[in-house]
C-alpha cells in the first residue's frame, strides 16, 4: 500500500495565523475584561504579565518544539509525541490521551456556543432582538433561543439547532480540506477580518464620549478607568494570581494539545521560537488592546458606574449575549455594530474550534492510516452525537461540567506533564537544542532555567491551589442543584468512557504499528 503523504503548512504566516486563530477566541473579548475588572483592574496586569512570561510563553515554545519533534516521527498528537520524547516508557502515551480528550471535550460545547454568535449576528442584521430594551427581556430572548423556556421570542429551539448545524458543517468543511487547504486558508482570511472588525468596534466605543449629557460621568474614558485603575490590595489575594494564571492558560490555548498538533505539520528546519512568540503577540493584542477596550467601556457608557459591577459580575456570557445587544441598541446603526460584534466572536470561535477538532482527526489519520476525508467523516459523526448532549442538557449544568474537565483540569494537568517531560525527561540541554533548531531568534538563556524549574513549580502550585480551592467542592457537586446531579453524574461517566475508549484506541494503534514494523 502506498504511504500516505502527511499534510503540511503552506506558509509561515499561515501557521502563525492558525495558531493565533486557535488562541484568539471568545475568551479574549469576554473573559479577559471581566477577569481584569474583577481582580484589581490595572494591578491584575502584574500577575498577568508574570504568568505570561513564566508560564504562557515557555509553554508556547515547548508545544511548538515538541510538536515539530513528534512530527518527525509521523506523530501529530500527544500520545505519539510524548512517546517519541520518552521512548523507554510504555505508559507515557496514555498521558498523551489528554491531548486528544481535552480539546474534544471543549469542542463538544464550544461549537454550540459559537453557533449562538452566528445566530446573534444574523439576529442583529434583521433586528430580531430590537424589541428587547432591558436586561429582563434580553435574558428572556437568550433563554428562549437556548430552548430553556418558550416565550414570545421563540416557541422552540429549532432556530438554535439550525444555527448549530450550519456552524458544525462549516467546521467540518474547513477540516475536510486539510491543514493547508482548509485550516490555513480559512485562518488567513478570518484573522485579518477579525482584527478589522475589532478595531472598528474599539474606535466606535472609544469615540462614544458622553452620549447622555445629563450623565457626564458615564463616559468611555471612565469606563476604561473601571478596567484599568489599579487596586494594589488585590495583589495580596492568592485568588487574583490564580485568576491571572488561569487567564493566560485559557487565552493562549496552551496545555490543550492543539498547538502541539499544529506544530507537528512543520518541517524539521522551520523556526518555532519567533513563530511561537508572534502568535503570542497577536493573541495578546487581540486580548489586552482590543478585548479590553470594547465590552467594559461600552457597558459603562450606557449602564453607568452603579450597574457596571453587577454587569461584569454576571459573567462573560451575560456580558456578550445580554449586555452587548442592549448597548448596540442605544447606538445609531445598531444592526451593523451588532453584526460586527457577533461576527467577530463567530470568526474567533471557528478558528478555535477547528483547532480543537484537529488532534482527534490527526490521531485517526496518523495512527490508523485513515484518509483525511474519512477521518473527518468518522470524527464528524462522533462529535455530532456528543454535541447534542450540550445542546439538550444545557440547563442541567452539563456545559459547566464539560468546561471544568476539558477546559480547566485537563489544561493544567497536560501542561504540567509536557513541561516535566520536555525539561526533565527529554533533558533541558537536548530540549534547548531542539527549540533552537532552525530558529530565527535566540531565546534569552534565562529561559533554560525558567523551563526547567520555574514553569513546572508554577504549574504544580496552581494544580495544588486549584485542588484545594475548587476541585473538592466540584467533585462533591456541592454547588450543583439536587435536580441536576444525575445529569452531572451521567456526564462524568460519559467522559470516563470517552477517555477509556481513546486509551484503548492508542493501545490498538501501537500494536498495529508494531505489527507493520513502523517506528512506535
Amino acid at each position, binding site marked *: 500500500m502506498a504511504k500516505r503523504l502527511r499534510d503540511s503548512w503552506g506558509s*509561515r*504566516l499561515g501557521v*502563525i495565523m492558525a495558531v493565533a486563530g486557535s488562541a484568539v477566541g471568545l475568551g479574549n473579548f469576554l473573559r479577559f475584561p471581566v477577569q481584569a475588572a474583577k481582580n484589581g*483592574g*490595572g*494591578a491584575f*496586569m502584574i500577575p498577568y*504579565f508574570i504568568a505570561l512570561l513564566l508560564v504562557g510563553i515557555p509553554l508556547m515554545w515547548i508545544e511548538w518544539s515538541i510538536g515539530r519533534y513528534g512530527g518527525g516521527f509521523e506523530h501529530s498528537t500527544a500520545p505519539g509525541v510524548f512517546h517519541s520524547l520518552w521512548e523507554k516508557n510504555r505508559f507515557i502515551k496514555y498521558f498523551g490521551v489528554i491531548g486528544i480528550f481535552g480539546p474534544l471535550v471543549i469542542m463538544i460545547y464550544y461549537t454550540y456556543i459559537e453557533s449562538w454568535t452566528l445566530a446573534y449576528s444574523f439576529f442583529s442584521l434583521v433586528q430580531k432582538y430590537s424589541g428587547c430594551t432591558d436586561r429582563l427581556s434580553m435574558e428572556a430572548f437568550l433563554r428562549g433561543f437556548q430552548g430553556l423556556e418558550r416565550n414570545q421570542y421563540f416557541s422552540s429551539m429549532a432556530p438554535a439547532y439550525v444555527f448549530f448545524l450550519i456552524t458544525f458543517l462549516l467546521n467540518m468543511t474547513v477540516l475536510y480540506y486539510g491543514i493547508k487547504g482548509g485550516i490555513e486558508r480559512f485562518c488567513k482570511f478570518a484573522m485579518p477580518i477579525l482584527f478589522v472588525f475589532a478595531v472598528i468596534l474599539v474606535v466606535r466605543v472609544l469615540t462614544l464620549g458622553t452620549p447622555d449629557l445629563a450623565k457626564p460621568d458615564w463616559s468611555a*474614558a*471612565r469606563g*476604561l*478607568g473601571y478596567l*484599568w*485603575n*489599579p487596586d494594589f490590595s488585590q495583589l495580596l489575594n492568592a485568588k487574583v494570581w490564580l485568576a491571572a494564571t488561569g487567564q493566560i492558560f485559557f487565552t493562549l490555548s496552551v496545555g490543550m494539545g492543539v498547538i502541539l498538533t499544529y506544530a507537528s505539520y512543520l518541517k524539521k528546519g522551520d*523556526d518555532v521560537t*519567533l*513563530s511561537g*512568540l*508572534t502568535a*503570542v*503577540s*497577536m493573541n*495578546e*493584542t487581540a486580548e*489586552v*488592546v482590543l478585548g*479590553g477596550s470594547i465590552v467594559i467601556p461600552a457597558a459603562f457608557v450606557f449602564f453607568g458606574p452603579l450597574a457596571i459591577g453587577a454587569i461584569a459580575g454576571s459573567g462573560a456570557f451575560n456580558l456578550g449575549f445580554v449586555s452587548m445587544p442592549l448597548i448596540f441598541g442605544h447606538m445609531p446603526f445598531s444592526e451593523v455594530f451588532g453584526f460586527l460584534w457577533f461576527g467577530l466572536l463567530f470568526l474567533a470561535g471557528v478558528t478555535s474550534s477547528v483547532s480543537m477538532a484537529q488532534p482527534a482527526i490527526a490521531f485517526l489519520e496518523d495512527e490508523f492510516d485513515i484518509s483525511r476525508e474519512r477521518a473527518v467523516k468518522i470524527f464528524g459523526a462522533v462529535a455530532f452525537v456528543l454535541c447534542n448532549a450540550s445542546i439538550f442538557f444545557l440547563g442541567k449544568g452539563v456545559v459547566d461540567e464539560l468546561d471544568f474537565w476539558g477546559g480547566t483540569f485537563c489544561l493544567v494537568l497536560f501542561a504540567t506533564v509536557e513541561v516535566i517531560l520536555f525539561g526533565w525527561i527529554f533533558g533541558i540541554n537536548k530540549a534547548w537544542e531542539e527549540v*533552537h*533548531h*532552525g*530558529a*530565527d*531568534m*535566540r531565546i534569552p538563556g534565562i529561559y533554560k532555567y525558567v523551563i526547567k524549574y520555574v514553569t513546572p513549580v508554577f504549574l504544580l502550585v496552581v494544580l495544588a491551589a486549584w485542588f484545594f480551592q475548587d476541585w473538592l467542592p466540584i467533585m462533591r457537586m456541592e454547588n450543583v442543584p439536587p435536580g441536576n446531579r444525575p445529569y452531572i453524574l451521567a456526564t462524568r461517566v460519559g467522559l470516563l468512557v470517552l477517555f477509556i475508549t481513546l486509551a484503548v484506541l492508542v493501545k490498538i494503534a501501537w500494536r498495529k504499528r508494531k505489527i507493520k514494523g513502523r517506528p512506535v
Partner: protein
Amino acid sequence: MTTLGWVFMSVSWFLILSLAVFCFMKIFTKQKVD
C-alpha cells in the same frame, strides 16, 4: 480614569504592541541563527 490607570493601560499596550511589531519586523527580515 486615574493617572495610575492611564499608566497601567499605556504600559500594557506599549509592551504588547512593541512585542508584535518586533516579531513581525523580525519575520520580514528573517535570518536563521541556527
